Each structure stands twice: as structure tokens, then as C-alpha cells.
């Protein structure tokens, strides 16, 4: 039953979904979508659909976990059972626990955690539909939710992946490209400070390819950053327009 490996990039140099190698998937971002959370955001990146909610800073329970000099940032990345083709058990998997940690560490440098000692900030990320690159989309949404909650930060964090598919360096991999491709490099960035907060690599790349991939991912991040800012402003600009 051996099937010929399908081509991920056609003769014209276009990808499975018709994108050029350096093209992002269509992105839609909304801020302040949940009434009960202190801050929230929703992102659609291609077929990815992700909700992020932020609570806090608030009293930390159990109290012995509180730190005397800073806020504790807690992060929970979770995939809904219906987010993938085959039902996923709702219990946190090894992968989800790891991603929660990775996302927390990507967001932490952007926040002034030392401002509010003895408290906790909780970030909940719910993946409703997954199609590759959810950790990046989650970081983008979670950072917006933090800003929406009014938590002081150095800069918004934006994330995007690049990788190698059929020996071509491509931007913003989707699920099939991620699984059948050669490598995946997710990058999270604070664009105004030009600081990387997350850099991972899954697969093999030569030094030149790696550099090319990182630069491509950074370019992608900057494009998403513009949309991210626009989404945050939109919440307030709309009210202004209705009035005038």
C-alpha cells in the first residue's frame, strides 16, 4: 500500500493551499471576546482557531506558591477534544504540558512581573481547531489578552514559524507541511525591542538554512504584529467612529 509521497510544492513553486513560500495564512484577530475574563483574544490563522483568556493579577491560592518579590505567571495550553481529526483526550497530554511551559516562558520576558508581588496571573489558551503552528498563534493571542487585561508589558509578543518543505524554506507551516516537511522553526518576538523570546527547531537544517528560516520567521512576525496592534486598537477606535 505504499503511496508515492505527494509533492508539497508544485512546479510553479506554490504550496498545497496555493500560498507562495513566503506567504502567511489569512489571519483574523479579535480582542475582548469574553465578558467574564479580565482580558481575552481570539485568533484565526488559516484553519487554526484559538481563544486566549487572562485572569489577574489576583490573590494566589494556595498561598504558599506566591513569591514575595514577583507575580507568578501560570499558563495552560489546552486542545479541545474536537480540535483535531481523531478525538483528543481532554486530559493534558505530555505535549500540552510542555507547550504550556514554552508559551509561559515566551510571554514572561514581556511582562513587568516584579510590579505586583504575591499575586498570580493566569493565562488560559483553548485550541478549538488545530492546523499546525498552534503554539505561535497561541502566543500571539495570549499576549493580546494580557494587554487587554491591562497588565503592563514591555511589548506585545508575536510568534510565527518558518521551516523547510521539499528543500524550500517556507513561512507559517500548516499541519501537513509540519508533519511531512523536513524542519520547523517557531520564533516568538518582541518587535519593538527586537528581542526573541522563543526559538525552537524540530528537524534538520544547515546553518545557512537555519539563518534563512529565522529571518523569514521574523519577517512574518512583523507582519502579524501590525495586525495584532490593529486588532487591539479596533476595540476602541470603533466606539469613536460610532459617536462621530
Amino acid at each position: 500500500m505504499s503511496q508515492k509521497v505527494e509533492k508539497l510544492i508544485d512546479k510553479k513553486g506554490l504550496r498545497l493551499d496555493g500560498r507562495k513560500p513566503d506567504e502567511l495564512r489569512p489571519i483574523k484577530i479579535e480582542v475582548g471576546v469574553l465578558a467574564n475574563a479580565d482580558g481575552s483574544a481570539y485568533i484565526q490563522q488559516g484553519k487554526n482557531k484559538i481563544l486566549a483568556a487572562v485572569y489577574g493579577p489576583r490573590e494566589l491560592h494556595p498561598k504558599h506558591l506566591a513569591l514575595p518579590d514577583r507575580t507568578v505567571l501560570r499558563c495552560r495550553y489546552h486542545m479541545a477534544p474536537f480540535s483535531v481529526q481523531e478525538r483528543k483526550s481532554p486530559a493534558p497530554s505530555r505535549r500540552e504540558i510542555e507547550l504550556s511551559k514554552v508559551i509561559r516562558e515566551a510571554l514572561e520576558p514581556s511582562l513587568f512581573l516584579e510590579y505586583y508581588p504575591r499575586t498570580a496571573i493566569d493565562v488560559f489558551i483553548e485550541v478549538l481547531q488545530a492546523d499546525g503552528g498552534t503554539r505561535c498563534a497561541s502566543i500571539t493571542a495570549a499576549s493580546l489578552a494580557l494587554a487587554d487585561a491591562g497588565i503592563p508589558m514591555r511589548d506585545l509578543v508575536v510568534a510565527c514559524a518558518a521551516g523547510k518543505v521539499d528543500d524550500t524554506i517556507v513561512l507559517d507551516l500548516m499541519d501537513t507541511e509540519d508533519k511531512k516537511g523536513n524542519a520547523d522553526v517557531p520564533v516568538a518576538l518582541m518587535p519593538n525591542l527586537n528581542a526573541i523570546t522563543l526559538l525552537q527547531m524540530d528537524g534538520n537544517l544547515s546553518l545557512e538554512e537555519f539563518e534563512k528560516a529565522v529571518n523569514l520567521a521574523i519577517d512574518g512576525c512583523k507582519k502579524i504584529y501590525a495586525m495584532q496592534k490593529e486588532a487591539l486598537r479596533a476595540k476602541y477606535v470603533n466606539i469613536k467612529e460610532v459617536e462621530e
Partner: protein
Amino acid sequence: MPTFFEKRQLVTPGDLLAEGDYIAGENTYKENDKIYASRIGLVDYEDRKVNVVALRAFYIPRVGDTVIGTVVEVGFNGWTVDINSPYLALLRASDVLSRPFRPQKNDLSKVLDVGDLVIAKIIAYDRAHNPQLTVGEPGLGKITRGQVVKITPTKIPRVIGRKGSMISMIKQETGCHIILGHNGVILITGKRLEDEQLAMMAIHKIDEESHTSGLTDRVTKMIKNEKAKRKGGS
């Protein structure tokens, strides 16, 4: 030494606001002689100082602030009060009861019970300790009637308006007595429920549209329209 935005322009966290010899004010931070915004809000350049008036923020206690809170726990020698902040506040029993009290004999829940609202003043707070409250001044103490509205704490100055223009207008138009807590909780007491509701509507409007200009006029108009509507209806 350039600045990069106009006064009262909307900025998002991470926006570069000014470069060079400036002082980082509220909701901003300085790094390598550059001043960035740390919250979403409206910029304000004031001589050398750069401020951002935050549109989204939470209340951080300050000594001397008047706050309105809810009792969430009755303890042995005091109450724990939720003041709409990351930190819970403490109100000591000895502060409320003028006579000396004995924990064995006096039942504190008869004085203030869980769910009761209090107007109080913050007398002590620092990074290491939760804020402490007092009700030992005129105007402070348990709230017995009225309506309570919660808004974003940073918008309290907007509700007050320039030299108190907004708040005195609302008081005059609705005939209600209004107490503003620095923690974003507002108490409205009026003669009739309708008056109180009118004042609540006005305050919600200010909360939603605090970043727009000419707000006082629009709120006045809204109140007058509502009043006319009600007269016509009844």
C-alpha cells in the same frame, strides 16, 4: 529629542513614545533613553514627562485613597474586604468598634457580615503587606442604600471631569448623591430608583467612551433625552 505621537493619540504596549531627555510617567517605561508605552491608552506629553492614560488597568492601593469594598470574610479580630484590586484589604475590629472588644464575646458578623459594602480609607499599604483600611472618619462606614457601579479605575478622573464639571453635572441633573471610590467602584444614592438608574447609565457611558472628546456635552444630552422620554412615557 523627538516625540513620535500626537497628544491624546491611542497607543499600544511597546509603542516608542519619545527619545532622549524625557521622564517616563505613568504606564510607560524607559530603556536606553527611549520611552515606550506599557499599556493601551492615550499618550500625554507634559513638558519633559510622558504619560499614558490607560484604557485598561486594575486598581493598585495607595495610602489615603477612599475605596468601596465588599466584605468577603469575617475573622477573629477583623474583616477581609475585596476592594476590586489584586490584593485583599484588612479592616481591624478595633477600628470599627470604639469600645474595647473581646473576640469571645462580640460577634463581628453582627457589625459587618459577608457581602456587606463599606466605604473605607486606606491607611497602610506596601509591597510586603496587604492594604489596611479604616472607617474612623466622617462619611466612611457601612453602605445601607443606593446603587453600586464598577468601572475601570483609571477612568475615575474622567468621571470627575475638568475641575469636577462632569460629576457636578450628573449630580445636578439626576439629583443623586455620588461617592467615587478610587478603586473604580461608585456609589449612587438618590431619592428615586429612576434617578439612580439615570446616573448609572451616564457613568457607564463615560466608562465606554472615556477616550473620546466632547464627552461632557454628550452625556448631558443623553441625560436630558432620557428625562424627556420618561416624562413623555408616564
